[in-house]
């Protein structure tokens, strides 16, 4: 995940988001390792919608410097101290990210982007952090080991196209084909460099979530209606929600088995996301994934989302996709050249 060849295709209609980053430390964040999200949420009453539900509306960015998994060497350390965090930030501003920050706006992309042009200049970048050493919470801080059956399933899937990668569009990755971008997949993991935006709009009984990337939109019912029948399988599964106090809880099932889902999981993937507004400018996004065919146990990550300026642009990926044609045409020319050599 994270490789974005499409973004370099000039013909794409997609407008690369230029979130106007500005240095900011997220207010309302946890202040000590002992403080939890729950207590932060309790300390602050969120604005309410006219129907009395918490107002999560706005445009949010999950850009972060925190890696998904805890860097080796930090052991069970879940939080940096204030001093350690300050030192890390100083290094990041100089572009020295190190193993502590290998995900998010700080990922090095010098060959592909003019960082200052696209708003990724680390001296100006704005990102949320709650001093966690990894997005995955808990003492381990890493994805549980993949079960042998899942390793085999994913290896078989990868082997299927081996040697036939350029035979047709069907052999190309889903994200090259604009069918499913890595970063629009659920759960929402911060993108390496852009398209971190999520716009939330609430109507009575429904919460709409518009991911800027690939204009993926979920309209999540919160009126108690059940999941759709199990036989209906979708690339992005199917989400139903409910309010748990000030937290929006979204339960997603019905993922497809046609592709490897999140981090190699199967159609048995079960995702529970929790959105809690903990300050004017911050939503804590927490997700738990379980899949008994992929991991030995469920695991949980937490990502702060910052309120940001809009607008969310239209991300028309397929409409501007000249890449598939170019790749396949190149392969066919190569086929012809190879054939003419053999002919000689």
């Amino acid at each position: 995940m994270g490789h974005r060849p499409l973004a370099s295709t000039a013909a794409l209609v997609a407008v690369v988001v230029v979130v106007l980053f500005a240095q900011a430390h997220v207010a309302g964040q946890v202040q000590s390792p002992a403080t939890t999200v729950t207590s932060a949420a309790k300390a602050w009453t969120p604005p309410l919608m006219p129907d009395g539900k918490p107002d999560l509306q706005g445009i949010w960015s999950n850009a972060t410097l925190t890696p998904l998994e805890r860097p080796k060497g930090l052991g069970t350390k879940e939080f940096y101290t204030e001093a350690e965090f300050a030192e890390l930030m100083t290094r990041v501003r100089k572009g020295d990210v190190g193993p502590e920050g290998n995900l998010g706006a700080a990922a090095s992309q010098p060959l592909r982007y003019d960082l200052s042009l696209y708003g990724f200049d680390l001296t100006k970048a704005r990102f949320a952090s709650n001093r966690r050493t990894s997005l995955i919470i808990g003492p381990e801080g890493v994805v549980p080991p993949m079960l042998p059956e899942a390793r085999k399933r994913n290896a078989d899937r990868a082997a299927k196209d081996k040697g036939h990668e350029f035979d047709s569009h069907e052999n190309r990755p889903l994200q090259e084909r604009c069918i499913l971008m890595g970063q629009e997949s659920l759960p929402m993991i911060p993108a390496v460099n852009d398209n971190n935006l999520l716009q939330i709009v609430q109507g009575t009984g429904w919460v709409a979530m518009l991911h800027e990337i690939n204009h993926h939109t979920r309209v999540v019912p919160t009126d108690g209606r059940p999941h759709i029948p199990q036989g209906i399988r979708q690339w992005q599964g199917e989400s139903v929600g409910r309010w748990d106090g000030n937290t929006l809880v979204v339960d997603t099932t019905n993922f497809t088995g046609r592709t490897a889902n999140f981090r190699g999981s199967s159609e048995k993937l079960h995702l529970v996301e929790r959105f809690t507004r903990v300050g004017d400018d911050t939503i804590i996004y927490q997700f738990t994934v379980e899949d008994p065919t992929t991991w030995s146990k469920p695991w949980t990550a937490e990502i702060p989302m910052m309120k940001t300026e809009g607008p969310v642009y239209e991300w028309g990926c397929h409409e501007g996709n000249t890449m598939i044609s170019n790749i396949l045409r190149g392969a066919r020319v190569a086929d012809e050249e190879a054939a003419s050599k053999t002919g000689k």
Partner: protein
Amino acid sequence: MRCGRRGSMIARVAAVCLLSLAATSALGQAPAYRAPRAADGKPDLNGIWQALNSANWDLEGHHAAPGPIPVLGAVFAKPPGLGVVEGDEIPYLPEAAAKKKQNQVNWVMLDPEIKCYLPGVPRSTYLPYPFQIVQSEKTILIAYEYAGAVRTINMEAPTMAPAESWMGWSNGRWEGETLVVDVTSQNDQTWFDRAGNFHSDALHVVERYTPRSPDVLDYEATIEDPKVFSRPWKISMPLYRRAERNARLLEFRCVEFAEEILYGHLRKKP
């Protein structure tokens, strides 16, 4: 302005409302229906809606005709339709009329719907798929099942589009019971229907959504494009609520259905 029931200004407001009601009936429209209110007091348009007509085949009135694929027989034949254009004629400029004819002849090659491209406005409304209105005070989001298309309508002070796009830039406002949406900055790539009706990048659409009854909205779109049409013209149709208890939009990510058309000629030769 809202013809409201709320307190203190009621006398003054009532007088104005009576005047506007009188004006409405003078125009010969149906008596005003007052929709249930959203939490902010505006008519509540939240819900899943769908057009039930053959406008996507041809905005103008049309008789039934065979479909493009003979082996499918009656399936995917073109259904007849009364048409949704006021006056039943789209006022093309002469050159544009010729292009429309060309589009019609080459429909299968050219229609952006066949390629699973974003549909633009107003076509997104009457494609044969449901769409969902998620209404809040400052932003109204419309999610369309077809191609996962989406747009947000800004209900605050109007803003300018930062760039042209497939679904355009929508600024909305309430006029009594009606949601009025002004759509600009659409690109010139979308069509109005499968009959080759088209527009340029000068397209300006003003949509009106007015509740007629709890489960029906009256939809109107006024279409203006001086590069293609000699005058503004209007379409209108009812939109019906999808009343299934478990209704919701499902995934119709149609890209993979269009790939064979777009890339099939580039398959490796056996």
